[in-house]
């Protein structure tokens, strides 16, 4: 751990045991699929077998006649008054196809029945007439004139205004700083490459599951494992054409998200089936549905060029970046323009970002969305440049590193950041200074950045009669944030960690919380918790003033103790709480913040050693170190876990994960057998180096840590493979087959 003027905290930085862990290690914790409601029906979603087709008709009569079936829904059930199927907004159409299906796996109807088997049998009886259209499955092909068009009404948004003709290009975003064309021409050394990555899935182990009950009075309750109960409520309300205030979303525990559980898929369908049947209805995805019917992350095509002076000063970067959006418009390429050059001070930049629809599932975020692919290009070019300049790539990175005041990718200067510190830490690390010996072995390094967000959070704190407090949290807890938040509250009000009980509550019980994503909960909901703590102390002072007969503004609170100005009266938080709450009326305060869009960003830097079997092309990861600027590590073990988890996801993405499609647009490997995520045998221990450069925007210096770890691995491993084999890898995944091809062992 590398500290940087770190204050002495009492609770923050310790490693308490998380209270929800006992339920998780005993199997008692209730996840989405564990929900049970009396009289519950089971649902099943029928999905399109075609990647691109007009829906001519849907006949559900045979399904309805099945003895076990209670209701069937189609997109017609989601029409707003006066709306027709072709006018369904994207949000709704992705949940239930309207006039077109746009990907294999697109939901077209759903059945509620007395049991799972009946629901599946009945779904098979639904007759859908399709008018099959040619699909487009490649991002560059989709951009060409003459490509099959997914949305006739789509026009490309460009800086010059919308395009005239229908297009699959959602938007062309342009970011320019300086005069990149000229500057590139003046560079002494230029490296370039045409990089491509495949669509991959977040791979959370828990498939989506949602249960809904639509009461006759119009009150709807939805139990779901989702990354944001409030956004889920909003989306569901929109899709159902039903008021937000009549929908209550209750979070179950969630078995992984990584950005893939930010959209709604089953919630509105379960609600509509419940409306029609008068019963609670549970929908649960099969693993096939998860692959084919949720939101994997874009495949990309990035053509990039990096230029420098002969002294190693990076001068110009130009990149043409095309990102798949899947079936409906998204902003993935736009995100890429916000992160692509973040690690370095490069004066002249031109980024062209193209968001493109293709006949694949509508893409979603996957931990630092768009940044890993952007880094796959940039960090390999940096590595190649270092080779050409005969420099250590780490020294080249340090020489050009972004610092406080450097112009960030969005034009504003960075506040205090830690890229320089982490590259230096890597250079000083045991890993970097251990020689790598043996044939077919190589070491690679890479940096990465994610901007992290703040957004809105709200918590409530209730004081218990014994002086402990209950912290009601509305932010989904993906991996232990209810504990990190309790730690921040304990730090703020001066109590022990065990004096704070942290619980997840529903959308009626706490103020608005934006989605758990963008690494924002420990930061943003942490700020709300800090606010709540401050508000709590103020409320207690107000009561104490009456009890002590001392003016409120003269009561002091320091290091967990209230005291009167002359010191004659004092008490710990718990003692005072027992006094003014235990024997007084109940006390609940809230803390709400809008932490703004950006929270200062996080940088990561990874070192990896690989060995490549020249006869089979297989890459073995020998050693891995993840270095990251973590702001203030509230719970160091959890922070380490984020680095390790993100690194291993990156290893899978780099080496073996991809969506295989046949020419008709059907995914061929929608199973954990052939969608190959790393197992325990595929990775070594992941060493971590936590560098703490406090975030000036947060009271305890907290920086989001969850996303940066997935950014460097793709490039770090590609660099390592290049050093091991002498051959650059421009395509992901670097599967054994691809390595055999690129190293010339096989011809294809």
């Amino acid at each position, binding site marked *: 751990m590398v500290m940087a003027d770190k204050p002495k905290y009492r609770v923050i930085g310790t490693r308490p045991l998380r209270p929800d862990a006992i339920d998780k290690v005993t199997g008692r914790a209730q996840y989405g699929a564990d929900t049970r409601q009396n009289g519950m029906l089971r649902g099943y979603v029928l999905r399109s077998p075609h990647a691109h087709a007009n829906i001519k008709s849907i006949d559900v009569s045979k399904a309805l006649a099945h003895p076990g079936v209670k209701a069937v829904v189609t997109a017609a059930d989601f029409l707003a008054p006066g709306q027709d199927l072709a006018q369904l907004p994207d949000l709704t159409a992705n949940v239930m196809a309207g006039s077109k299906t746009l990907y294999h796996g697109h939901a077209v109807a759903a059945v509620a029945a007395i049991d799972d*088997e009946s629901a599946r*049998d009945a779904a098979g009886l639904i007759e859908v007439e399709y008018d099959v259209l040619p699909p487009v499955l490649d991002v560059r092909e989709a951009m060409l004139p003459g490509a099959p068009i997914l949305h006739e009404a789509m026009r490309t948004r460009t800086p010059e205004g919308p395009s005239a003709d229908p297009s699959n290009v959602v938007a062309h975003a342009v970011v320019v700083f300086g005069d990149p064309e000229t500057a590139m021409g003046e560079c002494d050394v230029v490296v370039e490459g045409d990089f491509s990555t495949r669509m991959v899935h977040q791979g959370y182990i828990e498939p989506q599951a949602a249960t809904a009950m639509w009461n006759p009075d119009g009150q709807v309750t939805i139990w779901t494992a989702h990354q944001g109960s409030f956004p889920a409520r909003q989306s569901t309300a929109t899709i159902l054409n039903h008021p937000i205030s009549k929908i209550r979303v209750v979070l179950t525990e969630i078995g992984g998200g990584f950005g893939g559980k930010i959209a709604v898929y089953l919630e509105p369908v379960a609600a509509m089936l419940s409306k029609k049947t008068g019963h609670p209805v549970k929908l649960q995805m099969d693993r096939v549905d998860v692959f084919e019917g949720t939101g994997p992350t874009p495949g990309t095509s990035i053509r990039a060029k990096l230029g420098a002076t002969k002294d190693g000063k990076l001068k110009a970067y130009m990149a043409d970046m095309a990102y798949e959006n899947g079936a409906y418009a998204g902003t993935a390429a736009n995100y890429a323009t916000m992160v692509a050059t973040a690690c370095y001070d490069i004066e002249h930049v031109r980024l062209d970002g193209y968001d493109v629809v293709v006949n694949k599932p509508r893409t979603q975020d996957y931990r630092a969305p768009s940044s890993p692919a952007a880094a796959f290009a940039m960090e390999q070019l940096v590595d190649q440049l270092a080779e050409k300049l005969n420099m250590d790539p780490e020294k080249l990175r340090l020489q050009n590193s972004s610092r406080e005041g450097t112009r960030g990718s969005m034009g504003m200067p960075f506040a205090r950041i830690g890229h320089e510190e982490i590259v230096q830490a890597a250079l000083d690390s045991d890993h970097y200074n251990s020689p790598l010996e043996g044939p077919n072995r190589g070491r690679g390094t890479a940096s990465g950045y994610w901007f992290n967000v703040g957004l809105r959070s709200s918590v409530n704190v209730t004081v218990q009669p014994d002086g402990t407090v209950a912290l009601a949290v509305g932010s989904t807890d993906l991996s232990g944030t209810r504990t990190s938040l309790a730690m921040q509250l304990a730090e703020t009000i001066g109590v022990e960690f065990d004096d704070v009980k942290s619980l997840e509550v529903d959308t009626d019980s706490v103020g608005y919380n934006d989605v758990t994503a963008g690494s924002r909960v420990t930061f943003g909901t942490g700020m709300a918790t800090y606010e709540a703590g401050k508000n709590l102390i103020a409320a207690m002072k107000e009561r104490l003033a009456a009890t002590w007969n001392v003016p409120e503004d003269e009561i002091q609170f320091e290091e967990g103790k209230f005291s009167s100005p002359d010191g004659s009266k004092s008490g710990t938080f718990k003692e005072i709480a027992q006094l003014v709450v235990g024997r007084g009326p109940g006390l609940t305060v809230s803390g709400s913040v809008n932490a703004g869009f950006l929270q200062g960003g996080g940088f990561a830097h990874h070192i990896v050693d690989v060995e490549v079997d020249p*006869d*089979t092309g*297989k890459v073995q990861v020998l050693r891995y170190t993840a270095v990251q600027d973590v702001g203030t590590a509230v719970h160091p073990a959890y922070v380490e876990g984020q680095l390790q988890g993100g690194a291993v996801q990156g290893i899978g993405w780099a*080496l*073996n994960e991809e969506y*295989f499609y046949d020419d008709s647009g059907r995914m*061929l*490997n929608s199973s954990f*057998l*052939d969608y*190959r995520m*790393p*197992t325990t*045998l*595929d990775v070594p221990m992941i060493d971590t180096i936590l560098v703490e450069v406090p975030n000036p925007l947060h009271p305890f210096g907290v920086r989001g840590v969850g996303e940066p770890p997935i950014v460097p691995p793709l490039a770090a491993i590609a660099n390592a493979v290049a050093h091991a084999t002498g051959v650059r890898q421009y395509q992901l995944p670097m*599967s*054994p*087959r691809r390595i*055999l091809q690129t190293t010339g*062992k*096989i*011809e*294809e």
Partner: protein
Amino acid sequence: MAVQEYLAPATVDDAVAVLGEHGSAARVFAGGTDLIIQVRERRRDVGVMVDIKKIPELVECAFTGDGGLRIGAAVPCARLYRDPEVAAKFPCLIDSASLIGGIQIQSRASLGGNLCNSSPAADSIPTLIALGVTCEIAGSSGRRTVPVEQFCTGPGQNVLQPGEFLVALNVPAPGANSGAAFERFIPRNEMDIAVCNAAASVVLSADGSTFQSARIAVGAVAPTPLLVAAAGEALAGQPVSAASIASAADAARAAAVPITDMRGSTAQRKHLASVLVTRVLNQAVERAGRA
């Protein structure tokens, strides 16, 4: 069709009778790690699941009088590799048994079931072929024996006739100066279907310098696992050397007729056939030396 019935006959004759009674609606299973999934995913229609694990001779694994091994068709892989005598005498069987799926699969899955699933990429079959295993099949006309290299007839297809099922695998006693090995290539380190796999069983001269005979089998490169006779012929009488092994590897590569699919390409599989045959021959020779 949903599964209508589950039966667990106690003898081979009872099982034959059940299969005769229910015809094509009935299917035998041991570990169930293939069949239960296929039925659930509606890739196979099975009305009657016939569990053969209650039949004693299906779950017995015993050395025969002449030093061979009779493995009941339902003996789980884990039992094989936990048996020190089997592991010592037939390390090649252990190579296969310890690679099929993960631990949770190996506690249920059997070599016999793996054979009957008849995937071209099955991890047991090249080993069984290399070892010259014979298959004991029971049906309404009694029992018959089939050499394992003739058992599979196409992807998912084999010589079992309606009403028949596999009872046991008979592994011949390993001869003097013999050794065998199996390897497969997968992109990860476990849990994958083989992109290519290979097994070799060799008999060397007493001084270990010459190949007397060899059986080489390759999988995932043809509609069925292949016994590559030409590779064995290339080694018979030849000195144990990198050159002779290379010629056997070339023969395996030439015999391979793989497809390109999401697991591997034609070129990659042909290349791997050669690489893996080289590796298993080297390992088999080493084991023969140690035997």
